[in-house]
């Protein structure tokens, strides 16, 4: 086991209920759940890789490929929908040429639709990396995207 995984498993006893927190820690560290990570977790928890993938793929939080450098999240909550979230999604698709859930070939951008960022009063909301932009418009979004390298 590599040092990195030792660190992840440090505070766990190897119980079934440790699986989700371990997956969360793994993703936090590497940005995604790689096949290698699944193998390590499988050995630690003594469960099959299939079982682990079965649980991980059930939850929206986990992903299985390398993330892009800039993560664009379009909020698809109700308030955002009512105020034009769908149109913003289209705008991102047009600007960077990929569909939600994809990463650009140069890994510059990753594009995701998320359920609700909890900033409904300031809808529509877009999050790029850790910055949250409220009351977004198509035009403002285009200008904002230009600031990310």
């Amino acid at each position: 086991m590599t040092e990195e995984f030792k660190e992840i498993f440090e505070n766990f006893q190897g119980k079934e209920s440790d699986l989700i927190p371990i997956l969360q820690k793994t993703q936090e560290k590497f940005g995604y759940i790689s096949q290698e990570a699944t193998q390590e977790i499988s050995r630690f928890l003594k469960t099959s890789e299939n079982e682990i993938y079965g649980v991980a793929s059930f939850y929206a939080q986990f992903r299985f490929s390398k993330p892009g450098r800039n993560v664009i999240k379009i909020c698809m909550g109700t308030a955002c929908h009512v105020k034009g979230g769908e149109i913003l999604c289209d705008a991102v698709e047009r600007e960077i040429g990929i569909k939600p859930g994809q990463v650009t070939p140069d890994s510059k951008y990753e594009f995701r639709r998320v359920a609700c960022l909890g900033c409904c009063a300031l809808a529509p909301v877009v999050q790029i990396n850790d910055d949250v932009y409220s009351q977004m418009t198509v035009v403002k979004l285009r200008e904002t995207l230009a600031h990310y390298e």
Partner: protein
Amino acid sequence: MNNFESIQKKAKAKWEALQHNDIPTIFLGAASCGRAAGAMQTLEAIYQTLDEHKVEAKVVQVGCIGPCYLEPLVDIALPGKPRVSFSNVDPKKAKAILEATFLKGELPLQRAVGHFGEKDDSPFGELPHFFKLPMLEPQVRIVLRNCGFINPEDIDHYIARDGYQGILKAFELGSEKIIEEVKKSGLRGRGGAGFPTFKKWQICRNAEGDEKYLICNADEGDPGAFMNRSLIEGDPHAVLEGMLIAAYAIGATHGYIYIRAEYPLAIARLRNGLAQMREYGLIGKNILNSGWDFDINIKEGAGAFVCGEETALIASVEGKRGMPRSRPPFPAISGLFGKPTIINNTETLGTLPNILRNGADWYSQYGTQESHGTKTFSLVGKVRRTGLIEVPLGTTLRRIIFDIGGGTLKPFKAVQTGGPSGGCLSEEFLDLPVDYESLTSAGSIMGSGGLIIMDEDTCVVDLARYFLDFTQKESCGKCTPCRVGTRHMVEILEKITRGEADLEMLTKLQNLAETVKRGSLCGLGQTAPNPVLTTLKYFRDEYVSHVKDKYCPATVCRELLEYRVIPGKCTGCQRCVSVCPTGAITGPRSEPHNLDPSKCIKCRACYEICRFDAIAGDAIVIRSKGRAS
């Protein structure tokens, strides 16, 4: 004097000192919503300005006080004076306000929105009290009493405002009498269904076994709702104290907080809160010398809406896929790891300290015969004053939407309550008192408390499609009516919004909705058809218009509308030309432009940018195919 009394004394002294500071104190609303509005940039500007002018001041970050539309909110308290609140403070405004205050020595009151002085005196001339503002006056703040006031990262602030008095009272009463008190208060689960809190507790308390669990459900997966997030971010100890009370009442040995991973600030505040509790002996072994041991773990939810359902949530905490199971046995008898388990909503728990501290009679004075107390709502959508509110149950929708929310800019059309499981209510229900029974009788539900306001620019068919699309994606897939039924419903709804459906399909949709409602295993499937059923019932005309006339009255459904330029209003400024990504708009400067519908992708950029003439979107309007203008 016992240990807690001395802690309390110290906390009160600290709070008093903050109220009567000899240096200016600046409070900044820095919950997630404030941050989304730019609070952290404002904070930066505040520090810079203080530095630049060498002013000594204390800066305190507080939670969200409610009116999110006014954010970022900055309050300034000069020595010996109450706080004065300024709204929409961007970095530039922050600098200007601070300079006016500190260079001239007085607050620029003409720019302020309210003050927090004693209610009757008016030390600030015409400036109203903050809680006299139209959005706040009709509210009764019990759960939210500390939000926006205290520093949520300082347990002393909470204790100074009578925090942890509830658990002291609980120790005094003992578990049977706590349950009795909660029964008298009439508290019902604030997570949605409104099941009496005491009943669930009683079953669990009487259940066999030494090991019992308490889970705080802070997963809040409803799109359009953020009450739990705001409460935890603004007053985490209220929820933590509520957990102590509930756990003590049912005899739980261990507690979990199941919270959305998407709420990092709330999680951080809970972790910080737990560490502070440990320091003061409020958690762990022998809490406050009562001889009772109890500890709390935080479990981050991994993004599955169905985990709001109790049995699914338990599966998730156990490390499995979050799939519901059939009941009985109910979790109160056999829940987490097969042990008796109570799952209470965040707001239910946040209410408990108030009930224990002030008594059941005090609490039950608010609300209606059947639904006691207050409820927080997130007021969002096409309403003027958006934010987080708390009102007594039984308050009418009209009062919430128009008196508190300030109404809509365009004519009001509908209100959606209860999130994806809720329904859409038309204008005729505006005088409906908001309580569990009235909402249910109208075909909707209370849910966790999301209120989405719609005006005539919102298409209810599109909204129904949106909710069904959401529930279909979030269906765990275990039972067929939910898995297949919701998918079919989405397909039909999509056809309707594209103008490809006939009247027969509306009947099919109705039948399908009823089948899914009756045949699904858990709450997700049983309530998923509500948005469809209520819109079919109260807005049938709009469906018929999509189906028969291929016309979307709200001009939302994109397949059914077209953008065009109104020649008389277009001045030829070329702003729309510059933003059009497909070159659909052409024309020389100063002459009305041309829009080629075959090139237009309806991205709306032109509609947004066309506003030089003061009236937004006047030069380019949306026109429906079915209607000549």
